[in-house]
């Protein structure tokens, strides 16, 4: 009992001494003999029929293409636009900020989910020639809500802290997009067949998490061996 107390006191002291950020810090470098994690995210249950989005405004521009609700897209039983990431990796491949692009062409965010590392910047482009606004809902980063009139073709924003940020356009209420900002470079968005691939993962056992905007999160432990491919299947369902 007593020794337990001492141990926990030690850990509390350690927590006090080391700021939390140092625990989260990710160290990047060269990875040789890295393995790969590949797999699919399955959708449990009957695939929902695509829901049509009603374009209520600026129809001459926005209604050019038919739109489906991007909130839950299932393709061949697999989930599209889910983000798979390793949550507990401390050391691995180099983490470089990216220059990403989010396109609003036709009053739709493309890609619907954009994944990038913390510190990256994203060009939000408006080829529509009408007014959009980019309204972010975030906690770790400061939220922004910027108008993007016709003459402003590009807005550049830099996102410094890892989190999942929702993007909305208040002018066109149906528009919705997501920025997944990773704290390490190991993440991937499931493609149109619901599959993903994380490369150059140093050998080890990791917690791999799937995030989906409407279905929430699931995770499992995955062991990666050097130069080998670890296959994983996730399954998500409606709660």
């Amino acid at each position, binding site marked *: 009992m007593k020794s337990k107390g001492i141990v926990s006191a030690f850990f509390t002291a350690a927590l006090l001494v080391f700021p939390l950020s140092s625990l989260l810090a990710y160290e990047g470098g060269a990875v040789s003999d890295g393995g790969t994690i590949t797999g699919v995210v399955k959708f449990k249950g009957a695939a929902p029929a695509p829901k049509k989005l009603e374009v*209520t405004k600026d129809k001459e521009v926005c209604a050019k293409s038919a739109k489906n609700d991007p909130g839950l897209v299932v393709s061949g039983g697999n989930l599209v636009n889910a983000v798979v990431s390793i949550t507990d990796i401390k050391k691995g491949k180099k983490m470089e900020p990216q220059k990403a692009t989010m396109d609003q062409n036709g009053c739709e965010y493309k890609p619907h989910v954009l994944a990038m590392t913390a510190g990256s910047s994203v060009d939000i482009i408006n080829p529509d020639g*009408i007014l959009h606004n980019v309204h972010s809902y975030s906690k770790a980063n400061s939220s922004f809500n910027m108008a993007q009139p016709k003459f402003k073709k590009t807005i550049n924003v830099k996102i410094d802290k890892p989190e999942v940020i929702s993007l909305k356009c208040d002018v066109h*209420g149906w528009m919705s997009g997501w920025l997944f900002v990773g704290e390490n470079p190991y993440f991937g968005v499931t493609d149109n067949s619901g599959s993903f691939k994380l490369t150059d993962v140093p050998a080890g056992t990791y917690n791999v998490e799937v995030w989906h905007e409407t279905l929430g999160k699931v995770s499992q432990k995955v062991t990666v061996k050097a130069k080998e491919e670890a296959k994983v299947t996730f399954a998500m369902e409606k709660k």
Partner: protein
Amino acid sequence: MAVRGYDENEEKKSYGSVFLLGTSLLVAVSLWSLWDDNITRRPWKKYQTEFYRLDYRKAKAAYDEENKKLEADPAYQELVKKLAAEEASLKSGDLAKKVKALNREEIKANVRFTEIDQGVKFIKSELEEAWYEYDHAVQQGRNTRPYQETIQQLDKEKARLDPELEAARQKREQIKEEIKKLQTGVKEMETQLSKMAEERDKWIRVMENATVNLGPLSIYKIPKIRQIVLDEFDRNNFDEPTGRVDRCQTCHMAANRPGFENEPQPFRTHSRREVLLADSAHPPDKFGCTVCHEGQGAAVNSVQQAHGEVPYWESPLLRGVKAQSSCASCHLDVQKLQDAPLLAQGQRIFEQIGCTGCHLVKGYEDLPKAGPSLRRISAKVDPNWMVRWVQNPHNYRPQTRMPNFSLKEDEAVAIAAFFWSVSKEEGEKWQEGHPLPTGFREGDKELIAKGKILVESIGCKGCHGFADGEVATVLGKEKEIIPNLKNIAAKVGPRWTYHWVKNPRDFSPATRMPSLRLADQEALAITGYLMTLGGKSEGISGIEERLSDAKNAKRGEALVRKYGCFGCHDIPGMEKESRIGVELTTFGSKTLEELFFGNRADIRHTWDDWTYNKLKTPRIYATERIEQVMPQFALADEDIKSLRILLAGFRDKKAPSRYAADHSQRVVQVVEGRRLMHQYNCIGCHEIENRGGFIRKYYQENPTLAPPILNGEGEKVQSPWLFSFLKAPFSVRPWLNVRMPTFDFSDQEDNLLIGFFNGLSKVEIPYAYFDDGKVPKENLDAARVLVSKEYFNCFSCHKQGDRNPEGPQEGWAPDLTLARNRLNPNWIIKWLQDPQKVQPGTKMPSFYPGGPDNILGGKDDKQIEALRDYLATLGRKGSAADGGRSASR
């Protein structure tokens, strides 16, 4: 032979021992008195010595720490070495030689300069003389020629010497400069070093402050009383101003010094020192300590005495949160004090739970009655419910503000019978004109569903809860300001409910419940829904007869008078009754002798304990002979404690005005307006002063559908607009389902609220002139382009008079033609510069910085100004030549 008067024996006797005894006693007593006076009776000396030691030790440690850092700093060490080398060189090396040579030259140059200077000075004197002779000759009419010649001669000589003198001066300066240059290296390095060692060397000063130097010896400072005198702070029994002496910092020496946060008392730094003791707040040199903490400021002979924790000292020390009760002696607006949350909480409870119905407190005299009017109560409630409610309201609704009078059933029946008898006539008359609508069918599913949707969307939940735990504005920890309606069907019927929700003031003119401008069908639907909440009250046998029994009513009247029901309720025939409780204006100053503990031996005899137990169990001090009637409010412990902090501040002495905080008209407006705002529960829906907006929890999915946040409203809108809006609210935000209700504010109330918002925003001048005629045409032209589809496309979301934007209503934004009369022109500028800063989370995006380059020279501020001008003139009738109008600021 014996000499008279001479006693040989007596002469031979020795008094030495007596003298010795006397002298040693004297010495001992002197020593003792010295000891007693300086040591025993000066316990504070021990603390001060201890503090100096602590201070020195800490400073030394900090110094060593910094020193270690410097020692490990290669840059610093290198500089030290460089400086030493330079100094050595200057003393005996190369530099020394150069300096020596230069010094010699300097002497020579100096001699030369002095010689020439001497020559020039002689010539100047001779010139003076020659001019004198010349003037003299002119005055006497003599020949001036020789003098003129002398003058010319001397002038020539001087003209020859002047440049030589200048050359010699320059030579001398040049040499001086060279010497200085050779020495600057050292000076520069010294400044650089002391800058690098700043963090370290500041501790030297701290150490010096804790010690005195006696020649080569250094000892800790000699303790001495540190006192502050607050001129004319107190008043004596003859009401003459007297100073207050405050010696607390004799022991509490680090109260206003950082770095002692973790030391034991009396050496600890004051909590939140940077804020509370700041020069802009309460610098201890001006306010001392007892102003907030009480105690016996002048006493230093023992800790107990200094803290006033001795018998008969009437204001013992207030520790920790208890010091909050002192804030009210200088601050009128205690609600805005961030460091007195308990006091503010206590005040809110005190003002709203009905204390002032029975107790008079100066400054709280005019609060409205806490309970509803009972003039037509018989037309409103179920008689069975009434009896049970009177008997113990907490059974039906534990969170109600109504206290429990612990009555027996027959007493409750008697009181109900009295209320029935006085309200019967009025009630029946009202009922005649207010029948149940014919279309109403209880249990109509469609109607109920419609009613539920209305209740959840139009804003009822900003005030009322409709299920367990659903509550908008809480009072303290456990009480609700506005009834939870989860059991409402047990209390009232559909007929009353329908007419009540349609127009509450028709039934009860003084009610706080506003009208939501419901259509008949809407009122009907809401009635249908409400009647599904809870079951009907169980019948009490023979209730009708018992309530109409005149004997019961008579007994009830006596009970109503005994318990003072009219303190909180408007009761016919009792309008002029006065409060039944004791006045509490100076309750906090009551001494123990003035508090009646009854026969309770188990309660500690302190003011704190008496008050806590009184609020916890109001009749606790009753004895067999002495009855107590204060009812049970069933307050949570922490609410009792915050009320106690407020009560402790009800003192007979207030601080003189020169020590008081801002009591200007603006603050008075804020305090009065806030009271009214609390009374009408504006914060149920709106966030004001960063507090409230409790309804927002239902809008987490889409906060833009919640009622607007009103932080900074005074700065935002024009007072005349707000005045008429509050009188007759309309939908400013067409996308909201939630409705701003109509409160039927009186002119006075309306003005109080405007004063409140203006006061919060520090708007000193509510009216100012915006001259439409002076708006440049260039601005209007530019703004028209800016708002157009090609640019900002403002009307993509904003309404413009009758012209609605495209798309569904929830995407709309306010009518911009309202801006002219509604918004303060300066606020429009602030808003356009950064809407997110003014109202975080708003749908309005920022258009700036980054306006188009081709309009008004691409200058953002010019464009924003143009938009302001455009909005301030949009929708006006006639042309710009119409001239100006009043606008708020």
